[in-house]
């Protein structure tokens, strides 16, 4: 236990003094393309929609989300993005941005959370959650990640997330680490961040939600992890399931000190 704690502290220290990688030549053109698009990231449309949805009286209870507690008290939306996933006493579980928004939609507005969790990405109320998460990310833009790790469940979720990250399975024996466990590797021409440590400002965890130019879709972290698992040839992780939240906790804690650029724009 003491050794574990010591190594965790060392890790945290390493992360604080972490690395800020220079951009690599293989993606230079993509980076330029992104820079060009930054002036008009379509994510802004989702941010505007999200802000509107936060204030709108919606759902069976015709209530707004303005009393939603995202970790810093009811109604506080600045900076909450940088401290999620975290433990919530009312639900007695660790929640990420999207699963917490779903809780608020259920409790405050009377929506059926199970139904929404089952709804495919890009459909119905899933679009509401994506827009809200995009707006909330924007309200913390350029801030540095600092996930709480005081509550035992937060610590346990980090450890579970680490185990999920290294879980080799499926027909290809892939784990998250197969692609994201080393420095300076790529799949085809796509650079892969090493997510076992702080990968740098605006990289990995610090870049989602993001607008994807290739398919014209706005993706939250839940969808990003979902599609990683798809490519990993794993079965389908439930929306807001503990596996996705634990994995998010591992990535988020590893990104301590990294500046968020979300909502970002991706190829």
């Amino acid at each position: 236990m003491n050794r574990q704690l010591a190594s965790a502290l060392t890790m945290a220290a390493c992360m604080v003094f972490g690395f800020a990688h220079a951009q690599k030549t293989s993606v230079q053109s993509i980076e330029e393309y992104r820079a060009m698009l930054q002036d008009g990231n379509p994510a802004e449309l989702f941010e505007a929609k999200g802000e509107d949805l936060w204030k709108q009286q919606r759902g069976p209870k015709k209530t707004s989300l303005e009393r939603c507690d995202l970790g810093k008290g009811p109604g506080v939306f600045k900076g909450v993005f940088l401290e999620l996933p975290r433990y919530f006493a009312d639900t007695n579980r660790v929640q990420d941005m999207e699963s917490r928004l779903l809780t608020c939609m259920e409790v405050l507005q009377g929506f059926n959370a199970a139904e929404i969790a089952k709804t495919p990405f890009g459909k119905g109320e899933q679009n509401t959650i994506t827009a809200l998460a995009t707006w909330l990310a924007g309200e913390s833009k350029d801030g540095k990640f600092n996930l709480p790790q005081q509550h035992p469940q937060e610590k346990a979720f980090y450890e579970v997330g680490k185990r999920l990250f290294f879980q080799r399975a499926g027909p290809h024996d892939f784990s998250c680490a197969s692609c994201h466990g080393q420095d300076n590797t790529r799949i085809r021409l796509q650079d892969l961040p090493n997510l076992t440590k702080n990968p740098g400002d605006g990289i990995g965890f610090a870049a989602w939600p993001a607008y994807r130019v290739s398919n014209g879709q706005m993706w939250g972290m839940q969808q990003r992890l979902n599609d990683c698992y798809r490519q990993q040839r794993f079965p389908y992780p439930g929306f807001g399931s503990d596996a996705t939240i634990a994995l998010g906790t591992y990535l988020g804690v590893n990104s301590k000190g990294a500046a968020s650029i979300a909502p970002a724009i991706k190829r």
Partner: protein
Amino acid sequence: MKFQSKALLLASVSAVFVVGCASLPGSADLDKLTADIVKASFRDEGIVKVAVLDTDETNRVCSAADVAGKPLDSATAKAIEAANLKSIKWPSDGKFLGDWKEGEKLAQSGRGLTWTDDAKTPNGANCYNCHQLDKKEISFGTIGPSLYNYGKLRGVTDPGSPEAKAMLEYTWGKVWNSKAYNACSNMPRAGHMGILNEGQIRHIVALLLDPQSPVNQ
């Protein structure tokens, strides 16, 4: 996730903390909690069933070593490699080499076995995702080593010759079951896990070892 399984999971999360009080639970408890969370979080989708998570000893041991951040001790690594070597199916007709042109097509494809593929989607071999092969293909990954000039660098000028036999066998074995030679290799076990069949592996071996293959130009 069913409500019942969610409630059970919550109970198991809580149980871990009652035992551990305010401190972090032990490693075995965390392994158990992870297994419970996996069980409650994933579901079947399309052609992908949750059963694919019930993996074998090789993956279990290698995942644990990754979590611990320590490589396997050499005895464990050797045992895993021996078990995987034993599982290799050698070509039924003794022929190792197929058509490198077919091999190149397979190497280019990364398709198959995701939940958005159907059972009829032909599986790709995924080679270019991680390796350089034909020098003309500039879109290649770097997770695995470059395989450009693979056969040439290993002195294979006539794959039919007795001198080439050992390299033919090694290459076949590596593609069939990479873990036979490196216990925790990142490389999939294409033959062993049924990603590619015998005929397709012949094509991949030809792509790597045929002197006419662009890999060896």
